């Protein structure tokens, strides 16, 4: 007759083995379930139309196109306004320097 502790150890080992087996089986099953259901493995089947879920939506492209035009137009107008401001400021400075030089000789 085996000692009682050995029986417990054997039962525990069996339980762990069963748990590992179940975990491996469940994991594998989940992995297989994550695969595309009908990915063509045995042959390709032709069809004429792309499924709706695969089609590129047109609305974001349309919105992007119009936004780009607006952004470029406004951005360019802003650069002109900024450059014009800089040049006009410089123009005023140089004019002032010239008039200051002319003043002592008057």
């Amino acid at each position, binding site marked *: 007759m085996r000692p009682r502790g050995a029986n417990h150890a054997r039962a525990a080992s069996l339980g762990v083995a069963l748990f590992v087996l179940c975990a491996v089986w469940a994991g594998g099953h989940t992995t297989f379930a994550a695969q595309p259901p009908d990915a063509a493995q045995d042959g390709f089947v032709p069809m004429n139309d792309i499924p709706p879920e695969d089609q*590129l939506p047109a609305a974001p492209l349309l919105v992007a196109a*119009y936004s*780009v*035009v607006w952004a470029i*137009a406004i951005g360019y*107008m802003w650069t*002109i306004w900024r450059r014009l401001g800089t040049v006009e400021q410089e123009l005023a400075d*140089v*004019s002032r320097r*010239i008039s200051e030089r002319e003043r002592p000789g008057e």
Partner: protein
Amino acid sequence: MNRRLFPGLTVLSLVFFVTAPIIIVRAPYESTMGLVQKIFYFHFPSWMAMFLAIFILGVASGIYLFRRAPAADRLAVAAAELAVVFGLMGLITGPLWGVKAWGVWWQWDARLTMAVILELILVAYLLLRRYGGAGSEQLAAGLGMFAMANVPFLYVSTEIWRTVHPRTSVVPTLPVDFGIPLWWSFSGFIVLCLALLTARGRLEEQRAALDQLYLALEEE
């Protein structure tokens, strides 16, 4: 360049641009392309505005080259920059349409390649004006005229070569329902082009005035 023109032209272009999307939304869908075809209402006018700017660049360059008129040179610089801006709009909106219509962003066919080359010629013009140093005005004027000479070839390229791009004959044969939003947007782009040309021309005038003042300062 008439300074008073700018506010009026800007307001008018704003009216066109704000109302254009409403008119475009009400336009019918094209049977094969659907919603994405509506990009055409901004894409085509952007190229037309670019062609207008290039025409002004070419004529002004010719006047400068043969008559040495500084005002023509200033107008040419302004027009060249505008042509680059409107060309950029066309080069961005085109692939946004193409990715849906053709399934690819870009095709190196005759029309698209010529459009890129024209844009690069204009960028070369601006680089020459910026970094070319003294005397670059004449070289740039030649380049500006060369850019203008390219436009007719670009326009008829879809008729001459087999390209994936829709043919030029699409526009004159448009049904009225498609034509109204197109010509409305077209008017908006042309007015915007003129408004920006007025503002950009003013910048060139002020730069010329500044150069004159610096010369006066050095001579004293």
